């Protein structure tokens, strides 16, 4: 196995990235170096992990039934696979880009949600798919048996949906926020590449997925910051849990309380922060930061600020780093007339309210 050593220590790269992230809307060379350096460090920890450039980027099906379309690599085309309730990926290719709807509702929902997320990133944020280079979008439906989850497979570069057990969750394709959240983990992988660890970097990784996920949910349903419900996962709850949700970005800690799920553990702000903690717990603190910013600036402005922040952060960034970069990006965007003039003050004020400024 070949090992690579970084000449410049990671903490030095991070520091340079932090300084440069405040000067430009474009990610700096130091930020990209910090991201790539972290990818190699992760690759050393797992013998299965490959550098991104060596992973499958085209998602070609092994066999293509007559009449189905396989999009060309790098065209941000969609491919939907039916895993036939097996615990393996890409079992049967059932719908490609532009193909007519199939019989299964969940496959069509997955196809539509991929399209909604792709359109939002392109039209609102100018991003070409997950990697900003037209990566084809792959969805697997019917993964496993009664699988109560959905996820971004960071090694296979695919989105995977379970059917849900029917007790806690129904089919995970039922809400666009699921798809938007998980595909944003892919965007994070190709931008800040925040460490998925039980600290603030991991919480930020989760939170950016909730921020973009909820923004796309609101966009898909024609809502704004004041009419959106700010709930994550409310549409995938099983019938007996109707009215519950997984996370409440407006009021973290109030999304659920029932015997099947327990009680929502998210603290509202830094007064409830502790470490180590699962990224899904502490993400509520920065989720509410985003909610507060949205209430003042509107959802579109808040989202573009956070998207630009994600492009300029680095793998071990903390909440205060995110706030510093977000303020800098808000100033750059305000100067360009893309967000309201008071955006830097709103971003700072919300971070102070949440306890990390």
């Amino acid at each position, binding site marked *: 196995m070949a090992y690579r050593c970084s000449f410049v220590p990671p903490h030095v790269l991070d520091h340079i990235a932090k300084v440069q992230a405040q000067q430009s809307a474009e990610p700096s060379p130091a930020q990209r170096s910090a991201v790539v350096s972290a990818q190699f460090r*992760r690759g050393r*920890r*797992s013998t*299965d*992990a490959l550098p991104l450039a060596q992973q499958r980027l085209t998602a070609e099906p092994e066999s293509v039934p007559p009449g189905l379309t396989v999009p060309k690599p790098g065209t941000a085309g969609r491919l939907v696979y039916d895993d036939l309730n097996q*615990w393996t*990926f890409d079992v049967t290719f059932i719908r490609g880009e532009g193909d007519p709807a199939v019989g299964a509702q969940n496959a069509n929902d997955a196809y539509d949600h991929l399209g909604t997320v792709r359109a939002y990133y392109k039209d609102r944020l100018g991003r070409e798919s997950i990697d900003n280079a037209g990566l084809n979008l792959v969805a697997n439906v019917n993964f496993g*048996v009664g699988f*109560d*989850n*959905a*996820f*971004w*497979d*960071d*090694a*296979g570069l695919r989105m*995977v949906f379970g059917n849900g057990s029917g007790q*806690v*969750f129904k089919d*995970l394709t039922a809400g666009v926020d*699921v798809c938007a*959240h*998980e595909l944003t*983990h892919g965007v994070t992988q190709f931008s800040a590449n925040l*460490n*998925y*660890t039980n600290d603030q970097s991991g919480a930020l*990784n*989760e939170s950016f*997925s909730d921020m973009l996920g909820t923004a796309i949910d609101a966009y898909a349903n024609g809502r704004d910051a004041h009419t959106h419900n700010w709930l994550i*996962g409310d549409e995938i709850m099983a019938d007996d849990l109707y009215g519950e949700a*997984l996370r409440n970005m407006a009021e973290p800690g109030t999304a659920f309380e029932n*015997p*099947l*799920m*327990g*009680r929502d553990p998210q603290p509202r702000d830094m007064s409830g922060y502790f470490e180590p903690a*699962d*990224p*899904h717990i502490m993400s509520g603190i920065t989720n509410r930061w985003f909610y507060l910013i949205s209430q003042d600036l509107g959802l579109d402005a808040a989202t573009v600020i956070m998207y630009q922040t994600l492009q300029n952060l680095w793998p071990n960034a903390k909440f205060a780093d995110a706030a510093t970069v977000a303020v800098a990006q808000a100033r750059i965007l305000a100067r360009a007339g893309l967000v309201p003039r008071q955006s830097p003050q709103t971003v700072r004020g919300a971070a102070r309210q949440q306890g990390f400024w």
Partner: protein
Amino acid sequence: MRVTLETSGGFTGLRRTATLDTDLDESLDDLLRHLGSAEPSSSSQPRYRLTVHRPTGDQVAELTESEVPAALRPLLAELLRHARP
């Protein structure tokens, strides 16, 4: 042998646990020992932390959804059926 499962990660991020007394055949026992020696990867995927309570001490294996070997599926499925908050 007593085995404990703790789940986390994925979209839902729900943390649930289950403990079962189960017979581990030799190949599954070997597999769990092998998995226990691997470094957990950093990923937002669903994550399973398995603790085998051996007479000699607890042995922990942590893996993500896409790393689950087929031979481990039956035990994992059984544990997931019993998992509670």
